[in-house]
């Protein structure tokens, strides 16, 4: 049957039937004969010396199988390593014991684990573990931590994790240029909690006969987990199988390898029984990584005509109590290198100081460094525009990199692949009816209504990436991807990918790539992922890399299959392969469309092997590894309209327009979904979400009812459109789209609120823009002092 165009079609997702029927298998849904349950005992103190742990009462509690402390793991479960050792920044990598030994360093640090026959019995017994703590002073605030005599790790002076810098051009010289103004602002990018809807979980099973350990775990990257856990557990890699079954969202929080996963794996070996651990939401807030948490002093040098000539930032980045797997990369290379955004800024000077504090470790949260950079840049663009009396859209337009300048190397040294930034800006302004909106805003102000219009133009770096480049930045792995496209004798296709989607929909988009390339019906293609035993290698799903890197590997594997199939078809049709035409899944002889065979018929022949070209191996599959030559750089413009109630400080979003360019689009329905979800997370940072600690290091926003995960009623319908500028980096022309919304939305909304407050003379309010903060800023401004 003829295959219509499936690349670019709004195809319904293949993964959905099992999810909407409730028959998908998430980690907590697994059960095994003899399964027992682990519960961790966690520190209630942010910083304390462990004097003694008494497990005797817990050990004799009903149903208890084992109670272990850090001492019991000595020599058996090693320190959890950091996987991204960024060079040239004096990075400190103190050990991260799987269970705290002498000291606990944050509220939630695990000190013991209890295993029992049932989940409830394990919880009961965990409450009976007695820990005698000597409470120490805690450091929570970053600036205080740098000056404090209290050290999170005794061998890390000043609590300084790293001091990293990137410099291009000469900011000082730019700032000294006559007529140039330097706009300054301190910007706080608050700490966030990722809140994947599925908490983390792990099930480990050890087979003493084969010596094989199988770990089902909520991971975005099971192969990385296997490499790291192999070292942590001292198990040879081929005896360790890691499976990411259905995973309920990650947003970066399921990239790291965590202590619990190592401990549960060890328990399965030690006890000879399968062990399950499922995180409670409370534990998720304490023990799963947080994101963001920067304080930045920014200076922007700008000429009177609005040309931005320089940007200098001094950023403090909170790492929490331990170095998480990818943490060092987030506020350094994923932040500093993208500070030029979509603009020509010849002089950039960025210095980042990483700080240990007695708080939950931080790592990648959706966008990971790029939202922080974009927030700084886009806030500063607005402040510069205001200083010069320029329209925010105009100052952006004057600084955008023109479309004929690609590939374009920015001052921080990275080279952007392709772009037409002005086109996305124009399209967004057109959709928004910007001029009219400005007129409406003026009219509303005369009626005492405070409307605000905010913009952000952004570019992001994703699709990591060239392995040798990420290797040079200290990543302890490669970031290429593998794929296998395998026909079965009956002509069905199984695709194996090393990426590990957990909601993004690549079981559908990768099937679209294969169906398009091989001309087989979409329903004849199955995409498998997430099992280290069935897939050669993979580096996982994060950083908007799955489609540009993993999808390209799939595409290339499909080409190899097609080439082999063509040789078989040519042989059986007794023509040269050059004389064959491949159309809609069928090879036929050029000029003789009746003489042909479908690729699915070829597949049967490949497996029968009765009549193959001389020397050809039977079977029909293609395998490809793709290591891109560069990253990819999606971009776009978001515009929103807000209204602020000056009596209450309440902010309401009235309109939100997003124009994103992620290169060629495989499935518009899925791209829309990614954009919507990203916008909501970005808006939520601007307006509601924050993780708050008290001075003793207690997480005050420590439950889901205290932390503002946004709800449906808080948003209008988003108006989304796209421009399509293919990337030359991969043959599909695709960029990533998983993080664009999050990156663009936060400054867009803050800029809109500041625009609404401009009649009061309010210049800046730090996020989240809660009613109280907005109201106070208005009152302060009315009282004569700037906010």
């Amino acid at each position: 049957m003829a295959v219509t165009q499936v690349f670019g079609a709004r195809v319904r997702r293949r993964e959905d039937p099992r999810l909407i029927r409730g028959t998908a298998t998430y980690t907590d849904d697994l059960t095994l004969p003899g399964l027992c349950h682990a519960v961790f005992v966690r520190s209630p103190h942010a910083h304390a010396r462990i004097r003694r742990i008494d497990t005797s009462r817990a050990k004799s509690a009903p149903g208890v199988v084992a109670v272990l402390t850090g001492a019991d793991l000595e020599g058996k479960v090693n320190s959890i390593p950091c996987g991204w050792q960024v060079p040239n920044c004096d990075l400190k990598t103190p050990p991260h014991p799987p269970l705290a030994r002498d000291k606990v360093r944050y509220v939630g640090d695990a000190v013991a684990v209890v295993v029992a026959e049932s989940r409830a019995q394990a919880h009961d017994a965990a409450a009976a573990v007695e820990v005698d703590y000597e409470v120490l002073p805690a450091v929570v605030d970053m600036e205080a931590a740098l000056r404090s005599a209290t050290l999170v790790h005794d061998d890390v002076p000043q609590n300084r994790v790293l001091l990293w810098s990137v410099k291009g051009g000469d900011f000082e010289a730019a700032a000294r240029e006559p007529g140039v103004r330097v706009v300054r602002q301190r910007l706080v990018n608050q700490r966030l909690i990722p809140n994947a809807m599925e908490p983390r979980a792990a099930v480990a099973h050890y087979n003493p006969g084969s010596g094989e350990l199988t770990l089902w775990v909520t991971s975005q990257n099971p192969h990385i987990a296997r490499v790291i856990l192999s070292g942590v557990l001292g198990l040879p890699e081929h005896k360790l199988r890691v499976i990411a079954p259905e995973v309920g969202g990650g947003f970066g929080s399921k990239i790291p390898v965590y202590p619990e996963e190592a401990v549960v794996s060890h328990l399965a070996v030690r006890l000879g029984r399968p062990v399950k651990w499922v995180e409670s939401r409370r534990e998720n807030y304490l023990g799963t990584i947080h994101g963001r948490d920067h304080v930045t002093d920014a200076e922007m040098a700008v000429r009177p005509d609005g040309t931005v000539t320089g940007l200098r930032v001094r950023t403090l980045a909170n790492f929490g109590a331990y170095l998480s797997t990818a943490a060092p990369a987030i506020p350094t290379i994923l932040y500093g290198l993208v500070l030029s955004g979509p603009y020509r800024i010849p002089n950039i000077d960025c210095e980042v100081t990483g700080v240990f504090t007695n708080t939950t470790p931080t790592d990648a949260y959706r966008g990971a460094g790029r939202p922080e950079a974009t927030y700084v840049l886009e806030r500063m663009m607005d402040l510069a525009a205001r200083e010069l009396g320029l329209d925010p859209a105009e100052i952006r337009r004057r600084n955008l990199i023109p479309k004929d300048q690609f590939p374009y190397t920015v001052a921080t040294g990275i080279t952007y692949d392709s772009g037409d930034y002005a086109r996305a800006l124009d399209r967004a302004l057109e959709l928004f009816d910007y001029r009219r909106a400005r007129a409406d805003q003026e009219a509303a102000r005369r009626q005492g209504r405070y409307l605000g219009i905010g913009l952000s133009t952004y570019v992001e770096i994703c699709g990591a990436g060239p392995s040798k480049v990420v290797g040079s930045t200290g990543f302890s792995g490669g970031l290429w991807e593998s794929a296998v496209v395998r026909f079965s004798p009956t002509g069905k296709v199984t695709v194996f990918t090393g990426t590990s989607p957990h909601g993004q929909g690549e079981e559908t988009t990768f099937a679209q790539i294969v169906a398009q390339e091989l001309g087989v019906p979409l329903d004849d293609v199955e995409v498998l992922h997430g099992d280290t035993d069935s897939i050669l290698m993979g580096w996982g799903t994060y950083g908007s890399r799955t489609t540009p890197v993993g999808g390209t590997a799939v595409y290339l594997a499909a080409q190899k299959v097609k080439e082999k199939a063509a040789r078989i078809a040519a042989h059986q049709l007794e023509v040269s392969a050059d004389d064959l035409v491949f159309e809609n899944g069928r090879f036929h002889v050029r000029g003789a469309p009746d003489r042909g065979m479908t690729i699915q018929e070829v597949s049967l022949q490949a497996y029968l092997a009765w009549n193959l070209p001389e020397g050809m191996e039977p079977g029909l599959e293609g395998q490809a590894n793709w290591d891109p030559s560069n990253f990819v750089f999606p971009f776009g413009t978001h515009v929103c309209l807000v209204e602020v109630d000056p009596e209450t400080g309440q902010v309401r979003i009235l309109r939100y327009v997003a124009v994103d360019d992620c290169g060629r689009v495989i499935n518009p329905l899925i791209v829309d979904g990614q954009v919507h979800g990203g916008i909501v997370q970005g808006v939520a940072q601007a307006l509601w979400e924050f993780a708050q600690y008290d001075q003793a290091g207690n997480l005050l926003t420590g439950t889901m009812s205290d932390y503002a995960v946004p709800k449906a009623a808080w948003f209008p319908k988003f108006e989304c459109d796209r421009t399509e500028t293919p990337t030359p980096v991969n043959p599909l022309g695709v960029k990533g789209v998983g993080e664009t919304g999050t990156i663009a939305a936060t400054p867009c909304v803050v800029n809109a609120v500041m625009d609404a407050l401009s009649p009061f003379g309010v210049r800046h309010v730090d996020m989240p823009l809660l009613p109280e903060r907005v109201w106070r800023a208005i009152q302060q401004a009315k009282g004569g002092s700037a906010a």
Partner: protein
Amino acid sequence: MNVTVTVNGVRYSRDVEPRTLLVYFLREHLGLTGTHVGCDTSTCGACTVLLNGKAVKSCTVLAVQAEGAQITTVEGLAQGDRLHPIQQAFWDEHGLQCGFCTPGMMLAAVDLLQRNPNPTEEQIRHALEGNLCRCTGYQHIVNAVQAAARAMSAAVGAPSGGE
């Protein structure tokens, strides 16, 4: 204690600890793992089921409180191969990504559509306030509920409402 309930039309009788929450009863005693646990504060709604026809968070109900009740979980929505209109709509409109909140979200939507067959967008957004989704940004969920409302109205021959 003994609990006897009817779940998705099947009668079950089990001995449970008095403290057993309905959600764990469904998941661990009956093996119906389509109902999920996403929080410990009755905030997220991933565990939403229909108890005697009304949406409840099954993490907030003790199994013993459900004695004698009729319960519908996500596994009971479809009739064999025929999806429930809400399932069909979530699929058609891309109302889910990771799928973890989806069972609860769909059951909350079913509850809404029973009470209000033609809800406005605003009514849908408010009705889903007890159900959190971190992936979709809700827009496609709202579209799905509207599509289900149209499909269900058409099926009963009522005048089509919605947008």
